[in-house]
């Protein structure tokens, strides 16, 4: 399980003591003062010589903005949806730009795709290119519909994701997408990538 939100609140009530002339800082937490002072210097906790003008905030307070979905499924919300449900939502909220049955309109088609060996300018699609299904959920939720982003419910985003994966024959017509099933969807082009500068990938 990836760690994203562990231990952020431990040091909110932190005071700083400046030891001159060495300009050393020992941060003193109200509990376990010495242990934290050492930890702060080791891990770069509260820096005495830094302005420290940020206001501590709890992860719970960031939740309204915290919409990132990671490829392993971290961040996926509760809820679920099916391709059939997604088809109805798509017709109402997406077909205006992407065309009936996602076959393309003023904006790109979201079904099908030519082999990438057809040329360097082959259109990159869900079927032929996208490496992770989680990206589909993330982008749909954060950016769509274009005129009214972040108005879809989690169930609606799951349903639209299921619909688009289904019409591209990546999942079955009855498959339910939720926080458990979506990260397990293996996209056809998952292994089609190489980092341009492998030495720069953490």
């Amino acid at each position, binding site marked *: 399980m*990836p*760690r*994203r*939100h*562990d*231990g*952020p609140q*431990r*040091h909110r009530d932190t005071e700083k003591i400046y030891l001159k002339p060495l300009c050393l800082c020992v941060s003193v937490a109200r509990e376990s003062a010495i242990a934290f002072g050492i930890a*702060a210097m080791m*891990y*770069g*906790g*509260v*820096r005495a010589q*830094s*302005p*420290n*003008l*940020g*206001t*501590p*905030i709890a*992860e719970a307070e*960031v939740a309204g*903005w*915290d*919409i*990132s*979905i*990671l*490829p392993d499924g*971290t961040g996926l919300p509760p809820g679920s949806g099916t391709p059939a449900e997604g088809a109805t939502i798509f017709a109402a909220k997406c077909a205006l730009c992407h065309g009936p049955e996602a076959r393309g309109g003023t*904006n790109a088609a979201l079904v099908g795709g030519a082999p*990438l*060996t057809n*040329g*360097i*300018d082959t259109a*990159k699609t869900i079927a032929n*290119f*996208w*490496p992770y299904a989680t*990206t589909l959920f*993330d*982008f749909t939720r*954060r*950016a769509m519909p*274009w005129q009214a*982003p*972040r108005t879809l419910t989690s169930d609606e985003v799951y349903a639209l994701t299921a619909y688009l994966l289904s019409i591209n024959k990546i999942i079955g017509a009855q498959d339910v997408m939720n926080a458990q099933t979506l990260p397990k969807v293996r996209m056809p082009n998952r292994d*089609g*990538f*190489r*980092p*341009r*500068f492998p030495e*720069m*990938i*953490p």
Partner: protein
Amino acid sequence: MAAGNGLLHRRAFLAGGGTLAAAFTGYALSDTAAAQQLTDDSWSRGRGALIPEYASPSAFEKGVARTLSNPRGEPRTQHARTPHHLLNGTFTPNGLHFVISHSGAPDIDPATHRLVIHGLVRRPLVFSLDAITRYPLVSRMHFVECGGNSAPMFSNEPVQAGVQAIHGLVSCAEWTGVMLSTLLDEAGIDPGATWIIAEGSDSMALSRSVPIAKALDDAMVAIYQNGERLMPGNGYPMRLVLPGWEGNMQVKWLRRLELVDQPAMSYYEARTYAQVLPDGTAYQFYFLQDVKSFITHPSPGLRLNGPGFYEISGLAYSAGGRIAKVMVTADGGKSWAEAALQEPVHAKAFARFRIPWRWDGSPVVLQSRAWDEAGHVQPTRAEVVARRGQTKAPVTNLAAFPSQHYNGPTSWAVETDGNVRHVYA
């Protein structure tokens, strides 16, 4: 003479060589100045215009403007391209800085804008713009380039277009802001954090993943652009600046930085800015804007007014640091001369190169190539195509992006009538 077809030594006019150069060019001996009697012009005989609170260029300069791909704001991306052929120097004026916006520029109230740093940190923090403004600030000159800049160069036939259409998605500014490492230090980076997801407060909340190492190296949260607050299209009131890296990663309207242990594989990194290669695989995380140069003067749209002296000038830049050398040819690559670089040359910023030239009126092909201080060499177009491929049919839609990250040279053919057109050489 340094090279064929009239290229002069780059310092012909700098080191007491003026007389020599004048003799070569005939420029100073021209008799076209034999003119009429000079009299006061109309603007010299009355009161001038009122000075406005915030100035705009002369009305005569109204043609110096960006070209827009989506002027009516239809539900798709907007591109505004910089007219490099009408500018000179090394910085891009703020009103002409290129913009790509996928859903328009949000109208952000700076009093309520917030930047939050959270995730794998010891203590999540939220910053107001006022707070950011109180930090020790640094000012650095850096270019910002869209990963798709120069994309028409992947066409198998040279597109008939100029610098603005081909290379207008790069600009350079002095960015002033707080080093991101300072803010991350205060939040306390968890040793398990390897990437940062940067997210904007635009309507699509554009997000990109940035390796922690870049964030700690030279990344900045910028709040000023060429001395004034950021332009709305360039990220007002704050943006990420990742010197030398792909423009899309330098998230504008920055509101959230989340430290994580894996890249988000967001839409723009997993799909849009991944490049299909000839074998059907694709590059992922290109990150760097490789060393590149192009000639801005002359270039298509700038007609040469008869034989004689001209200065060939252009821009060079690299993610690898300072530009070390630019070579120019006037005979399609048979012979080369080194151009002068305008000092100071900043790292990961535009370098303006210049070289004097006497055009004899015959057809010539001009081209530039750049080297950076780390030893990176701008590849030939053939080298780029061998690695990256090109389209099978000529590109006709200049707004399309057949691929990205082209950094080969651009060749301009000067015709006998003085017109300049794009060729491959």
